[in-house]
């Protein structure tokens, strides 16, 4: 474990990814202790104050401290995106592995499901369902995961098809190991590189989609803070209150870059088999 952690720290992409993400994740988990103000407290004397020492990132239209709201918002945004990514990756990996390993009818049925789900434009489908259902954390996670597992399933399936033809899988079959043991110990560990790449790409996309949903008023709603709702406020006066949209937008972009860097680094390490 210690060796794995050292390898992660030695990798440049992983290091930069962690430098970006550790503060964001810490802010999300320890927000209560870090945030200088209550994120929903409206101080009408402090409406639209630009960044200063008193309010690091300024205040919004209700006089709420933006720094505190972004810290609390990271918990919502990252919580939703990470949970949805985890669900989608789990489902996609399981279905892709099953389809590629068992082939035949199982493969055909699973892949037709993939085709059907891929037929819907993701954002449109998510908007449609979010419009009909009561918005909230669980609903958003389920809706996002439901329309995000297909790319992973396709990637994992094609990788599984290649791995099942390798000599080490043939050797394992000759040892008399059962199918599920081969899938678990021979195929799955060699799929991890693909799964990690898929997860980081998806996480970046889902952070943006979650923010878009909140921006459109279909995800997290006011007064709860999320990066999307804060960004949405910024459009009211993007010039006069420039700091609202700029800081929230930058935070989204930097976090997505952080996850992509970490994913790239983990993929590199896995390919070199240092993980």
């Amino acid at each position, binding site marked *: 474990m210690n060796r794995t952690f050292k390898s992660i720290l030695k990798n440049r992409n992983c290091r930069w990814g962690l430098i970006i993400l550790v503060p964001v994740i810490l802010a999300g988990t320890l927000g209560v202790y870090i945030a200088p103000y209550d994120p929903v407290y409206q101080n009408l004397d402090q409406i639209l104050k630009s960044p200063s020492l008193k309010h690091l990132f300024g205040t919004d239209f209700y006089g709420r401290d933006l720094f505190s709201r972004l810290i609390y918002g990271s918990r919502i945004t990252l919580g939703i995106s990470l949970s949805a990514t985890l669900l989608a990756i789990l489902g996609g990996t399981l279905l892709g592995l099953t389809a590629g390993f068992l082939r035949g009818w199982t493969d055909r049925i699973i892949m037709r499901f993939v085709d059907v789900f891929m037929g819907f434009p993701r954002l449109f489908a998510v908007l449609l369902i979010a419009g009909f259902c009561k918005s909230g954390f669980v609903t958003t996670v389920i809706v996002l995961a439901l329309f995000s597992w297909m790319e992973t399933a396709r990637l994992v399936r094609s990788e599984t098809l290649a791995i099942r033809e390798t000599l*080490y899988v043939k050797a*394992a079959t*000759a040892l008399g*190991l059962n199918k599920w043991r081969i899938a678990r110990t021979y195929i799955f560990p*060699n799929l991890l590189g693909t799964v990690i790449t898929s997860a980081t790409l998806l996480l970046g996309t889902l952070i943006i989609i979650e923010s878009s949903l909140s921006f459109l008023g279909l995800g997290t709603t006011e007064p709860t803070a999320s990066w999307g709702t804060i960004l949405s406020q910024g459009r009211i006066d993007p010039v006069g209150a420039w700091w609202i949209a700029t800081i929230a937008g930058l935070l989204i972009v930097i976090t997505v870059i952080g996850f992509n860097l970490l994913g790239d680094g983990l993929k590199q390490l896995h390919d070199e088999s240092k993980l």
Partner: protein
Amino acid sequence: MNNDTGKPFLKVSNLVVDYARGGFFSRRKNVRFVAVDNVTFSVMQSQTLAIVGQSGSGKTSLAMAILGFVQPAGGTIEFAGSDIRNLTASKSRPERPRIQPIFQDCGAALNPQMTIGRAISDGLPVSLPSSRQKSQVLELMSRVGLPGDLFQAYPRQLSGGQKQRVCLARALAVGAECLILDEPFSAQDLSVQAQLMLLLRELKSGLDLTYLLISHDLTTVRLLADKILVMRGGKMIEFGDIAEILSAPQTDYTKELVRQAGILPQ
């Protein structure tokens, strides 16, 4: 050992292996390519049968059919008296370990994410306590000439010869009785070839193993084999005692193979 009396250990009769040719856009649909055409032979226990022939002669397809990786289009394969044509079916899974492959690309035959110790112990019964598993693996490693400190090593940290030894130890761990050695020496340098050959001889005499040695190199084959099967274009063109065939080859093809190997017929 030349023991030709009694029941054959491995008996292949009229074996046919074919593959579909042509893709979706091909005009030649439903055309089959016959890789192994009506091959019949038998091997007694603790004998070594060399299967020789140039590339594309059907040697590996024959081995794949015996291992159950390719479903034969015809013929029978009997191992120790039982039909093993459907080795892929889960019902015959307990029978599978009795025949083990040793591939030419031994590096590709080891899971890159698995340590050597784990790779060798993977065929051992799951019910065996881990301490017993480890001691058995270390015993096998020493038997094939691998130092015990490679237990935690990964395949990428091993040389070609060491990887080949790991594959042998893995085959022995599941109690293999017959090894199908597919060009085991071709990727090794001369000194490693000699060491592996000695090891194979030692294992054969110590464990009563039966070998099917696939090779295109008659010089190595004649040092290990008791019998020889010469293949060309999927067909068996000569089969018999190695000394007899190499000293008096019957077909021009075998004569050419013997000439290329620099073995002078007596």
